[in-house]
C-alpha cells in the first residue's frame, strides 16, 4: 500500500469534519508578538543540575549544569569524548545512560523518572547524530508521530496541511514521504528527515546532536534555513556542533565549552571565534 492511497482512505473517513486548528503547543503562552513572548514570564525552562551520567559503568558526565529557556539558542562545543552526546542522550532518556546524581527538570518537574516517549510528549526533541533506519513507510510514521503529539483524534487533513508546509520549508518533494524511514538515505536526507519531524511536532526544546555533520553545503544551507524558520520565542535550543562557522551563523545566545564531562566555560558568541583561533586546549588553559 502506498502512503498516498492510505491518506486518501483516511481523508474519506474524515469527510465532513472541518480541519481542527491545532493549538500552539510550543508554549501556549498567548503572547501576541515576538517581543512580548521574549519577556513572557511563562517561558519554559529546561534545567540540568549537577548531572552525573555513566555509560557501561564508566562515568562520562561529572556534574553538568546548564539552563536553557524557551527562545534561547545555546551552542555546546568541545572535543570528541567530552560528553556532549551523552548529555543529549541522558536528557532524552536513553535507557543505557545511567544517572547517578543530579536532576534534569522541565519547569521544575524532574523528568529523569519518565520514559523517553513521555519526555518527548512534554516537548523535548532530540535530533540524532545517526538517525535509525527503520523499514516503515515515512509518511505512515509521520502520521503516527503527529498523533502522538497532537492526540489520537488528529485529523488526516490537519496532518496533510502541516506536512505540506513542513516539506515546503525543507524543499522536499511530497514523493519523499513514500520512502522507508531513513532506509538508504544520504546523510543530508537523514538530517532533513530529523528537521521534518521537528517542524511537524513543534517541540518546546530541541537538542541538535551534530545535525550539521556529514552534510554538503547545500544540505547544510537547507537545514540552517529550516532552523531559522522554527527558531523563535517558543523554541529553546541546545546545538551540539564541531563547526565554529556553523555555530556563529546560528547566532546563539550562549556558547558553552564541554571538557571531560563538565562545562568548563560559558560566554557569548565571541567564544566561538576564540575556539576557532585557539582550539579547545588553549581555551581550557585559560580557564585553569
Amino acid at each position: 500500500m502506498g502512503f498516498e492511497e492510505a491518506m486518501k482512505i483516511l481523508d474519506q473517513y474524515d469527510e465532513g469534519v472541518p480541519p481542527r486548528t491545532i493549538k500552539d503547543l510550543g508554549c501556549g503562552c498567548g503572547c501576541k508578538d515576538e517581543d512580548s513572548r521574549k519577556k513572557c514570564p511563562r517561558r519554559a525552562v529546561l534545567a540540568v543540575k549537577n548531572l552525573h551520567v555513566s555509560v557501561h559503568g564508566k562515568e562520562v558526565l561529572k556534574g553538568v549544569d546548564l539552563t536553557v529557556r524557551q527562545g534561547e539558542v545555546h551552542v555546546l562545543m568541545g572535543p570528541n569524548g567530552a560528553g556532549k552526546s551523552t548529555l543529549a542522550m541522558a536528557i532524552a532518556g536513553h535507557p543505557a545512560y545511567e544517572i547517578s546524581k543530579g536532576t534534569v527538570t522541565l519547569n521544575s518537574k524532574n523528568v529523569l523518572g519518565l520514559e523517553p516517549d513521555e519526555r518527548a510528549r512534554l516537548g523535548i526533541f532530540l535530533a540524532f547524530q545517526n538517525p535509525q533506519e527503520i523499514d516503515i513507510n515515512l509518511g505512515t510514521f509521520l502520521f503516527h508521530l503527529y498523533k502522538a503529539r497532537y492526540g489520537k483524534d488528529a485529523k488526516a487533513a490537519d496532518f496533510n496541511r502541516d506536512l505540506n508546509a513542513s516539506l515546503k520549508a525543507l524543499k522536499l518533494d511530497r514523493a519523499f514521504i513514500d520512502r522507508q524511514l531513513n532506509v538508504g538515505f544520504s546523510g543530508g536526507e537523514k538530517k532533513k528527515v530529523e528537521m521534518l519531524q521537528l517542524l511537524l511536532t513543534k517541540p518546546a526544546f530541541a537538542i541538535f546532536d551534530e545535525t550539521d555533520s556529514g552534510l554538503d553545503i547545500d544540505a547544510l544551507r537547507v537545514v540552517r534555513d529550516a532552523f531559522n524558520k522554527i527558531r523563535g520565542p517558543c523554541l529553546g535550543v541546545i546545538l551540539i556542533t564541531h563547526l565554529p562557522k556553523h555555530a556563529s551563523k546560528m547566532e546563539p545566545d550562549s556558547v558553552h565549552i564541554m571538557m571531560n564531562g563538565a562545562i568548563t566555560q560559558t560566554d557569548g558568541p565571541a567564544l566561538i571565534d576564540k575556539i576557532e583561533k585557539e582550539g579547545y586546549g588553549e581555551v581550557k588553559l585559560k580557564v585553569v
Partner: protein
Amino acid sequence: MGIGSINDDYGEKYGFHVSEKAVFRSPKGLNEEVIRELSAKKGEPRWMLDFRLNAFKIFLVKQMPSWGADLSQIDFDKITYYLKPSEESAKRWEDVPEHIKKTFDRLGVPEAERKFLGGVGAQFESESVYHKLRDDLSEKGVIFTDMDSALKDHPELVKKYLSTLVPTSDNKFAALNSAVWSGGSFIYVPPGVKVEVPLQAYFRINAKNMGQFERTLIIVDKGAEVHYIEGCTAPVYSTDSLHAAVVEVFALEGAKVRYTTIQNWSGDVYNLVTKRAIAHENAIVEWVDGNLGSRTTMKYPSVVLKGANSRADVLSIAFAGRGQHQDAGAKIIHLAPGTTSRIISKSIAKDGGRTSYRGLVKVCEGANSVKASVRCDALLLDDKSRSDTYPTMQVEEEDATVCHEATVGKIGEEQLFYLMQRGLKEEEAMALIVLGFISEFTKALPLEYSIELNKLIELEMEGSVG
C-alpha cells in the same frame, strides 16, 4: 491494557456467535452412516458418494502427521462434521436468514462487496449461504459459485479436476476433507478473461466443536487472470474446532492467479489445510498467505511448476501469540526448464507463541535454468517465544540458481528509542517496527485489507509491554 485484552477485542470484533438455528445437524463423530446421510442430503451423484467412502477408508488408516505441530488434542469423535445452516444458498442478501446475515453484516461483508469486490461468497458452518458474482463477469463466462452447486451445474469440470492435484491419500486431513467436504469456492475463468477486481469468500464457523471442511477448486484457463481472497473467522469457545480445507488451483498456459488468505481463526481452531497449485507454461501462481489466528496451523501452500518458464511466488506472514503455534511454509516443485520461484516468509512470535517455517524447494531432473530463492525472517518479541526454520532443498540440476537466507532478530533497542523519542509509546513503537517488518506482505494486499491488517497488528501489540 493487559494481554487478556487481545482476546477481549477478538470477542467483540469476530468472536461473537449467533444462536444456532441449523436445519440439519449430523450427530457428533464420523462413520460411514454420517457420510451417506450427508451425501444424500446434498443429492449427490453416486460417484461422489463413492469418492467420499473411499476417502473415509484412507482417513482411517492414515497416520497423524508426527513431524509438525502437536495435534494430539484433536478428538475426532467430538466434532460435528456436517451442519447445514439454511435451506439454500441465496443470491441476494435479503434472502439470507436473519441470524446469519447479522453475522456477516458485523464482519462488514456487504459493505466490502459494494465497495471493491467483483464477487462474494459466504460460508456459514458447512454450507454456502450466499453467492454473488458481478453481472459483467458472469456475462464473460466467469463462474464463481460454491462447490456443491458446481458439482450440480458443472459436473464435467469438477470431475475433470477434483482431487487430481491433491490426491485423497496425500495426507490424513486431505483424506478427511475428501470424505466429508462441504462448501468451498469454485472458480472458472475462461481463456483470455482478466478479472480485474478480486473475488472473495468469507468462511465463518459459528457452532461449537464444529468441523469446517470446505473444498476449493480454481481453474484459470489459458491467458486468464484472477485474484481470489479468503477470510476466516470464528467465535471464541473453550473447546476446539477443526478447519481442514483442501484447495486446488490450476493455472493453465499463460494464466495468472493470486490466492490471498487472511486467516484469523479464533484461538481454539485447529487449522490444517492442504493448498496446492499447478502452473502450466508461462503461468504465474502467487500465494499470499497471512496467518494471524488459530490455535495451531499447519499449512504449506505449494506450487508445481509443470510448464516451462512458469513462475511461483509465495509471500507469507505468521503471527503467533500466547498458546499459538503457526507451522507454515511453502513447497515448490520445479519440473520444467526456465521456471522461477520466490518464497518470502515473515514470522513474528510473542508471549510464548511459536512459529515454524517448513519449506521445500525441489528442482527435478530436466528442469534446467531454474531460479529459486527463499528468504525467511523471524522476529521474536520476547525471550519466551520461539521460532524454528526447517528448509529442505533438493536440487537435481547443476545449473540451478538456488539461494536461501534466514534471519532471526529481536526488536533493536536503538530503533525503539528512536521512535519513543518521537513520542510513540513503547507498544506503538513496537507495532510500527512489526508493521515495517511485514510491509512486503501488506503491500501485496488490496488497500482495504492492508489497513485492516495494520489495525489488527496494532491491536495485537497493545498490552505487549509489561
